């Protein structure tokens, strides 16, 4: 491990709570494999990355989860996996979760309802997943977007599956700042993952004022997008150093320790 921990990334721990792996059909991504991710992490000072494979969110979910397994086994001290479930194969969801978590390579679950046909988060295809996550107190990272479920649906799921930990992807940018902040304040098991919000200066500062800073998580979406611009925005944010430390990695350590992040 040869992390570049020079300032400004000389934090004790940096964990990327939202990343991916592999090719994506819609555009060219140079260096999208595990070696490419590790090289970028080393350069940016990222210690650990929790990822799901593009193939899992956009194509054959089993094939994609296998790619994640292989990457984690290649870099067990740097990478951990989100198991992706595809609600369009509802009869296979429970089996795929068992298969993933039996491997020891996964620490959470990733949902991409947009790429799975705008599938509703509270639809029957996701029910086995919510039960599984609730039983094991797992983090569940869900993509959010303009056309997806509103924050009220996520709130109801947080209430119903109160032992799961729901990470609202992209800080719920498309769901309304006031509504998202209120939801996080009302539900102890809702977290905001920041990739996308970190594309703009000032968003993380506002979120840190509006919700407990302990519920904010660095995410980069690497290699979907470049991690440096997201992380760099956090590192130069107008926040106390201790808050930046928490958002960059301290909060994620607390969250993922429950699911055995190596």
């Amino acid at each position: 491990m040869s992390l570049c921990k020079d300032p400004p990334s000389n934090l004790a721990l940096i964990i990327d709570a939202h990343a991916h792996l592999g090719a994506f059909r819609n555009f060219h991504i140079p260096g999208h494999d595990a070696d490419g991710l590790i090289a970028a992490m080393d350069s940016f000072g990222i210690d650990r990355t929790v990822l799901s494979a593009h193939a899992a969110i956009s194509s054959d979910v089993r094939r994609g989860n296998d790619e994640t397994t292989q990457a984690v086994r290649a870099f067990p001290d740097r990478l951990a996996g989100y198991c992706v479930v595809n609600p369009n194969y509802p009869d296979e969801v429970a089996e795929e979760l068992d298969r993933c978590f039996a491997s020891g390579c996964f620490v959470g679950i990733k949902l991409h309802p947009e790429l799975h046909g705008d599938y509703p988060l509270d639809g029957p295809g996701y029910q086995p997943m919510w039960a599984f996550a609730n039983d094991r107190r797992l983090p569940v990272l869900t993509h959010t977007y303009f056309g997806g479920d509103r924050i009220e649906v996520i709130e109801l799921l947080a209430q119903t599956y109160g032992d799961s930990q729901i990470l609202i992807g992209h800080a719920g940018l498309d769901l309304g700042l006031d509504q998202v902040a209120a939801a996080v304040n009302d539900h102890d098991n809702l977290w905001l993952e920041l990739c996308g919000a970190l594309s703009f200066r000032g968003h993380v500062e506002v979120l840190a004022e509006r919700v407990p800073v302990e519920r904010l998580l660095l995410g980069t979406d690497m290699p979907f997008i470049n991690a440096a611009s997201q992380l760099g925005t956090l590192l130069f944010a107008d926040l106390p150093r201790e808050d930046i430390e928490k958002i960059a990695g301290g909060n994620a350590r607390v969250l993922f320790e429950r699911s055995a992040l190596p």
Partner: protein
Amino acid sequence: MSSVIDAETWIGRSSGGTPVGVHHLTVDALLAEMDRVGVDRACVHHVVAREHDPTTGNELLLEAVADQPRLVPVATLLPHHTGEFMHPRDYRERLFDRGVRMVRVQPAADLHSHRFPLREWAFGPALAVLEDARVPLVIDFGLFRRAEPPWDTVAAVLAEHPDLPVILPEIQARNNRSLYPLLERYPSLVVQSQGYFVHNGIEDLVTRFGPDRVVLASGFPTKSMGGALFHVERALIADSARDQILGGNLARLLRLEDAS
């Protein structure tokens, strides 16, 4: 090492557009952020030129940066045919001779842009003047997230004005399949690092096309100047290439005194 030059910043009072972020930036605040982050010079336009009226905004800009040697004014242009904006024959006296070294246009038709065709029959005279003066043109299509530029329009400008440096901001993460053929074909095309969100993107672009096709840009205060600098400083490229991207390329394009 060349000076670190940010190709894209703005000053003024913005309408906001989003409920969070910075809506008002003074020259002093811009200079303070440049000092905090480590940027020596910055190209700057006035947000009133973007949001309201280019003629008014350009005048506000030139007045604001008149005694600021670290700030390079970037004028915003419109076509002249309606009488809303000066004729291109007046660019030299009213813009270039007053310190403008780069210009920008926002030709897209959406409500936030200036809605004009970036084509010879509408903007050709302006492009010819810019090309003759070698004044770089930033084409801002107001891109965000999954958008892409109108590539045929960009290709036409590059083909018809081969000596005009064209700088594209906000290319986003998804457009290499269109960008690369243009970079191959037209050496006058340059990419702003701002909004070029491709993973390993700077590295791959430098490997394929050389270190002179990218310039540091932040979009500050909408975007993070520190984040933009971090993006380039941690790119896995040779230090000589990094120096060019951080400032050398822009110094050459703008013909600043420290251009090598």
